[in-house]
């Protein structure tokens, strides 16, 4: 018969919960808008630890990596350009 793995409980769960709480505390510091020097250090550390090697980085994507942006004048001209599907009275 196949054996099943047990979900965490008891002291193992307590250990995991403490670890998760520590991770959460770090996440809070990393997510602070007004960062202290320690927050900035932690942010750099987490960034380094979580950034995959380029070959393993499945999130790379040509649309995202192109850093597509718009010019404010271009958007202004676009908005005031000819409506295509609308009723002139609107």
């Amino acid at each position: 018969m196949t054996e099943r793995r047990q979900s965490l409980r008891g002291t193992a769960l307590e250990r995991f919960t403490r670890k998760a709480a520590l991770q959460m505390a770090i996440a809070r510091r990393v997510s602070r808008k007004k960062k202290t020097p320690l927050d900035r250090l932690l942010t750099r550390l987490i960034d380094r630890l979580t950034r995959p090697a380029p070959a393993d980085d499945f999130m790379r994507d040509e649309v995202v990596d192109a850093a597509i942006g718009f010019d404010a004048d271009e958007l202004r001209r676009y908005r005031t350009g000819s409506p295509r599907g609308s009723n002139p009275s609107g």
Partner: protein
Amino acid sequence: MTTSPVEKTVVCASCDIACQLRAEVRDGWVVRVKAHPNPLLRDNICMKGIYAPKGFAHPDRVLHPLRRVGERGAGRWQRVSWDDAMGEIAERLTRVVAEHGPEALAVSTSQWNTSTDSGTGRRFMNLLGSPNWISGVALCAGNTAAVNRMVYGWFPFPDIPNTRCIVLFGHNPRRHSWTPVYNAIRKAQQQGAKLIVLDPRRSESAERADLWLPLRAGTDAAMCLGWLNVILRERLYDADFVRDWTVGFDDLARRVESYPVERVATITGCDPDAIVRAARLYATEGPSVIPWTPVTDQQRNSTSAIRLQATLRAVCGYVDVPGGELFQAFHPDVVPESDIEAHHLLDAAQKAKQLGSDRHPVFTYRGTEALRAPTRRVWGREYANVVMGSYMANPSATFRAMADGVPYPVKAFFVLGNNALLSYANMQLIERAIRNQDLVVVHEHMRTPTAQLADFILPGDSWLERPHLMDGYGWLNAVRTSERAVAPPGECRGVFDFWRDLAHRMGFGAHFPWHDVEELYSERLAAFGMDWHEFVATHEIHVPAPAFRKYEQSGFATPSGKVELRSSILEDLGFDGLPYWREAPPAPAGYPLELFMGVREDEYFQTGQRFIPELRARRPEPQVYVHPADARRYGLDEGTWVDVATPHGSVRLKAALRDDMPEGLLRVPHGWWKPELNDPASLSGARLHADAQICPDDDDYLDREQGVPHFKGLPARLVAVEQP
């Protein structure tokens, strides 16, 4: 003069995933949307967010309130002031209520505005006395939440980062669809987690899976019964958890005995050995997760299938444990939207009038009544509108009341950020329903097919133009902040402003004391000892401390206090207390194919974004996926226009030959119309292309308990045509 750019933290609402992003603002315009630099949020961005600034600058965007002149749907509009529009709306709604009662108002909301009203829409309705609120979440996540609550009192969220096995029922997260879920699954796989995919199509996720089961469309419930048969027979379940924390296990065991693997293999079309291997992998490799999937939400056996997924989680002991499925519940320091909605203000007599609750009660007030006391006991509040899905009217029943006045007339219909005509089954009925209204108000960005049938189109703001406190749809306990990056253009306003204004005009002003949405957010955040402006200046995200196995202290929020494998609520409502499999009716003659509806295309969310040139250029036409062998049989080439028909209706689509499709199955995209067509006769192409026309909602094609339509495995046929 060009100024230096300023960056704002925003939460994207171009789909419902709510990625936290950065908006770069220059000269009063958002000129770039980019990924957040926070390493925990990095990469959670997709093309819909990136191109959003272009969409919000579209020349056709509705910038001023418009009032219909001439016949409904004739496409003639007059610009009016907000004050005039709201004054007339209040006056006409008052007349409808005086003549037909408050239940004669129905409201449909979704996507970009859902949850940005912070519960004020339901609050208004509860004050007025109408229970008839509908939403796309009736067939997408909201209904799943309601069914999960019946089993164990909350809708759990998968702990994918710590899991060892992931099961995707037809779900296919990709780089540009459900991006954070895709990111999490790929990372978990890199760390050794197994992936099981159940999908008729060899999807991108199936290609990466350790085990792919190409099940027949719409057979999720049967597959789960087969897995349980294996898991119970081989005693692979968590016996301690089952003994201490479940009720109805013996009854369930007897029920699943009727579903031996051979029978399930016949129903699902899968190899019996593969079914056994998958069940064993799920039960022994754990903790495992079955993330939410829209596919299971939209089937004839949806209630049973969702319950069975919840049952699998429970009997294997994966509930509220690391790497399993977490009960996040309310953030302890944030007033939830459920409180703002004030469901206690709607009296029992009006709740009883909620449309559809007599025949399909699961996600209605009637269906969730028995959860009020347990929810208060465990989660501290009587009402928990998780994913907005716990107190809804049934959409089909609502449209029938609107169209035919049965069981009573609904004569006013408000549609906020929701292209209702295309968003539910049976578009023919929905159009008839809307045309039969005394008052139709649409709050929108564009003149959608639904807006074209309105009396008033009110200009809505966008997620780059409003502040937002994102509370995870009442499902997750993380709260995130979104800053207003730029002012709304023209006279665009938020949904909060709409409801507040109407409430004051209708005499409910005392219940809407907030001057603006920031004041409401400040009230919700008062426990932090700071107002919205202080909170948003200091927090991007706030998550309470993690806790697991919380049920050991408080039990489960069900009538028995345990996981109800046999549902006391469903039995009290007159349904089978155990999950089951219900066979499809025989396909009518002349419909030899099957249809899988609801492909999510990377470029679009639901019926949106087709007006954004860069996205439309990537996918200019609606496509039906066809296996090459079927294409040969029907004389189709790549790009041939075809009519795909069910007994209910027909749509015109372009054939895309895909060898990842199984033979005999067609896959149709959701929500197509062509915003560039100014053609009231075709409702901008909706009458030609919108899949809602081929979705029936009669009894054979509705789930019994929820009344949601069957979108996976409808009988269909196709015919090549000359013209688009």
